[in-house]
Structure formats: C-alpha cells, structure tokens
C-alpha cells in the first residue's frame, strides 16, 4: 500500500515537472521569436547594405554596418547565454566556487568593461565602505553585477548617474545599484524575479525577461538576498546582501 502511495506521488511530481518544462518551452518560443527577429533582420539588412558599398571612400558606411552586425550577433548570443544559464540553474548544475577577492577592484574592473555600453553622458559612480576582502564566487558575482549595471544603463536616460555602492560589514556584504531610470511599478515588482517576466513599461527596450531571474537565483546560491525599491519615472534600486563569516 505504501509503495502504491509512493509511486503515485512520484508520478504527480514527474507530471508537474513535465508541465513546467512544457510551459517554459512555449514561453521560450514566444520570447525567442520576438527577441531573435530584430537582431536577425538587422544582420540581414546590414549585410545587404554592406554589399552596396564597394568603394574605399565608403568605408564609413561599411564600418557602421559591420558594427551593427557585431552588436546584433552579440545580442543573440547574450539571449542564448541567458537561456543556457536558466537551464543550468534548473538542473542544479551551477557549482559555486568561493574564493578570496578584492571587492573594490572586482567592481572597478566590471565598471571598466561596461564603458562602451553606456549611453551618452551616463556616468557610473562607485564607492566602497569597509575592508575590501570578501569570499565569494568571482564569476557568479561578476554576472550579477554586470546584469544589474547593464539594466541600469538600459533603462536610464542619457546624462544620468548610476550609483553603485559596496559595503563590507562584520557579517555581511552589501551591494546597492541605483539608477534614475523608468522605474518598476509595485505590481510588477511582485513578479520581477520570475522567468520571462518583463515590466509593463519597458515598451520597445529589448530584453528576454531572464536576467533578473538569473541574478536572483545566483544570489540565492551564494546565500544572498536581493531586494528592489523603485518608483515609476524616478528610478530603481537593487540591494543585495550576502552573509559573510567574520574572518572572511
């Protein structure tokens, strides 16, 4: 009798997993068909135009289209990487490898890497409080910060300041990323970390709705919590807290 009950439960679990997977797939198809089409059309039309510019004097035009192709291909591979990350998270295949790192240098390097992504006049201002040594997984932390900063850039206007702050307390590392962007409504904030969720006010700003889901899962894997404060039209702040051992 017990065996029967067990196998029934097992069956229900398997069915639910299968259902979730089915839903994930259909949402992926919807997202992918929309998010893949734009960069693909750009690659196609830029390649077509590139062929038209046969003269050396037209190098400026060639360069423009080569840049468009490169950035479209990047966009496509970013989408795929996000999707692969979600898959790995679901399968529990992400292994956290904590190591000692200098948080100030780490964040500084990430900000440097994002220099070319910023809009005209945007500025990232970073400050750190407390000791600089922390023990976290470098790669995962980088992904989290990269994602949150890219979002801040993407959803903020030109000539705006993005503030990033890190603070090492006795038992905690605190990170804050604050922008003056379009903001996220209270209703949307409830669903922010769900797979494929996008805010109602994103209009034509590109995105898969996977980034913050990955960030939240990654934070969780490193014993961290993420919180979002925001006001529509005013800006958004993400606060991350990681538990630290005193001697780390």
């Amino acid at each position: 009798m017990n065996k029967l009950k067990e196998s029934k439960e097992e069956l229900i679990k398997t069915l639910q997993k299968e259902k979730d997977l089915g839903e994930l797939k259909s949402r992926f198809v919807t997202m992918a068909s929309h998010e893949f089409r734009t960069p693909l059309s750009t690659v196609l039309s830029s390649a077509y135009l590139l062929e038209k510019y046969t003269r050396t004097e037209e190098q400026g035009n060639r360069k423009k289209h080569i840049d468009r192709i490169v950035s479209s291909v990047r966009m496509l591979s970013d989408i795929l990487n996000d999707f692969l990350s979600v898959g790995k998270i679901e399968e529990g295949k992400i292994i956290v490898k904590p190591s000692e790192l200098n948080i100030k240098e780490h964040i500084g390097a990430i900000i440097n890497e994002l220099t070319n992504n910023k809009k005209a006049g945007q500025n990232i201002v970073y400050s750190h409080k407390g000791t600089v040594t922390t023990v976290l997984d470098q790669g995962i932390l980088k992904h989290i910060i990269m994602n949150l900063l890219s979002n801040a850039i993407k959803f903020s206007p030109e000539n705006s300041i993005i503030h990033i702050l890190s603070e090492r307390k006795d038992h905690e590392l605190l990170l804050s990323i604050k922008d003056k962007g379009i903001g996220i409504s209270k209703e949307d904030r409830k669903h922010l970390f769900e797979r494929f969720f996008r805010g109602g006010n994103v209009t034509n700003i590109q995105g898969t709705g996977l980034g913050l889901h990955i960030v939240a899962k990654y934070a969780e894997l490193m014993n961290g919590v993420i919180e979002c404060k925001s006001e529509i039209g005013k800006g958004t702040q993400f606060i991350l807290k990681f538990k630290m051992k005193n001697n780390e």
Partner: protein
Amino acid sequence: MKKILLIEDNNDIRENTAEILELANYKVFKAENGKIGVEIALKEKPDLII
C-alpha cells in the same frame, strides 16, 4: 522624388530600412513612434507610409 514615411521603433531596423529605400531613390522620413509618425505625415504628405 517620391516620399516615404517609415515608422519603426527599433533604431537599427529603422535606419537600415531607410537606407535601403534611399538607395532606391526615395525621399525617406523616419519616425520612431506613431505619434511622431502622424505629425510628419500631416506635414510632409508622403506617398506611402510603412
């Protein structure tokens, strides 16, 4: 020269489509949303709106 008004919200797609049309000898007006599109349409009276 025939006039075409092109309304498209994606920057790259709009620029590329406009460039293709310009190479085909059309005068192209670009708008990134319907609101701007209507304004231009009233002012420029294009032969075709995409």
